[in-house]
């Protein structure tokens, strides 16, 4: 029952978010600030994770191919597929559910606890539009961060090959180019857009509707992380089934 109630309230929140928009001159500053906090502020960790995960995928694949009949260029192929299809969009989004998600929940939750949201409401401002909308728009740039992640993941694999001596650079590049299907990239970016929306709205939901004090802000962040990850994983399953299945 409570789940249904929350799901209903979540969709009402989304609808309310678009009502009575905040003045554009104010909204613009909010969006820019959120782009800085949520996207620019995450580039470092996304780059770091992507590069090394890409490298590890390459090493694992290379080490597991022992059969001499399997061509060495498969290492590059496998890295490309796993980085573009799953690691960059899904794996990174789970990490972002922790980083960006807990930031969103705790910052909105603190505003709730210290009555700053009430202060906005009392002034006649649509606080959902003021707080959640700019985050949602800012995260529409998230796919760019993921694109950088994809590139660095593949680059990380390349570095692992060359410096670890697993395959030659030529084989790796040949692998990257083998059976390339542009739709995989499209699929991946559609997924990323959906995840971006989830990353902006579910943590906002838990921050906005929380009750209690500072302790509950911490709990709300944890709950938000759990549900954001669960929803991302489920949507990943559903979208993959729909688009590739």
């Amino acid at each position, binding site marked *: 029952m409570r789940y249904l109630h929350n799901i209903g309230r979540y969709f009402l929140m989304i609808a309310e978010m678009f*009502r009575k928009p*905040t003045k554009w001159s104010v909204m613009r500053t909010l969006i820019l600030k959120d782009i800085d906090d949520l996207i620019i502020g995450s580039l470092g960790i996304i780059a770091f994770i992507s590069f090394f995960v890409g490298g590890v995928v390459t090493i694992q694949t290379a080490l597991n191919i022992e059969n001499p009949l399997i061509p060495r260029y498969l290492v590059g192929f496998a890295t490309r597929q796993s980085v573009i299809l799953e690691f960059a969009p899904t794996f990174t989004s789970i990490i972002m559910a922790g980083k960006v998600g807990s930031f969103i929940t705790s910052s909105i939750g603190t505003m709730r606890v*210290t009555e700053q949201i009430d202060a906005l409401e009392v002034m*006649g401002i649509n606080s959902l539009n003021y707080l959640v909308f700019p985050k949602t728009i800012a995260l529409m740039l998230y796919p760019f961060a993921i694109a950088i992640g994809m590139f660095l993941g593949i680059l990380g694999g390349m570095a692992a090959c060359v410096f670890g001596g697993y395959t030659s650079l030529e084989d790796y590049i040949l692998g990257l180019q083998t059976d390339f299907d542009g739709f995989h990239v499209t699929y991946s970016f559609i997924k990323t857009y959906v995840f971006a929306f989830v990353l902006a709205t579910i943590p906002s939901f838990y921050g906005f509707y929380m009750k209690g004090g500072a302790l509950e802000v911490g709990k709300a962040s944890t709950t938000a992380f759990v549900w954001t990850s669960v929803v991302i994983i489920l949507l990943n399953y559903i979208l993959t089934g729909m688009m590739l299945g």
Partner: protein
Amino acid sequence: MILVENLHKSFGDAEILKGISTSFEKGKTNLIIGQSGSGKTVFLKCLLGLFPYEEGTISYDGKIFSNLSEGQKRDLRAEIGMVFQGSALFDSMTIAENVMFPLRMFTKMSKSEMEDRADFVLKRVNLPNAHHKMPSEASGGMQKRVAIARAIVNNPKYLFCDEPNSGLDPKTAIVIDNLIQEITDEYQIVTVINSHDMNSVMEIGEKIVFLRYGIKEWEGSNKTIFKTDNQAVTDFVYSSNLFKKVRQMYLEENE
């Protein structure tokens, strides 16, 4: 004028307000007094529509609040200034930005006009040099004064203050009380103040509503509160010896 009729509010099984009726006139400082936990904050938040209530009507100059559409509510609220008990400053903005916020949202003022206006109200609350501090760098009393500056910056028609001078030193507390009374009179606003500061009661209590156990126990002014024989009021207001003496002297003088 704000008119409240038969207001009931519960949290779960706990009935906090058990049918309150009263009115707040414009140009007057209206005080709501009562012990900690008596429901002053809850009452104020019901007036503002921040808490839903089970029964009763609240009208702002004849407009019944609960009948207004969301849009009309927001328009009305743009004319409301509120000082929260915990100040509720936006902690991502500097003090000056906090004060200018209602102007940025609701007026077409240029940046320099907004800055001038913010300067003006910050001076009035005795904070001429704190513009660039963040709220977290300000003391509790400073935060309170910024909250007051923010509440009055856009010339509200209705001003609500939840314990505006708790946490202030006596001198600043009086400055704030007088400031609120001054602007109430000057701009003819409807002002409602929650307080348990007896000084404010005596100084600016042009109308006083005393809440106790969820009902309106007594209603009057700082003139009549000296004379009341309502035991609950005298127990609450004259719990300190100093005020007992003040009362005695007042009664003797006016014999």
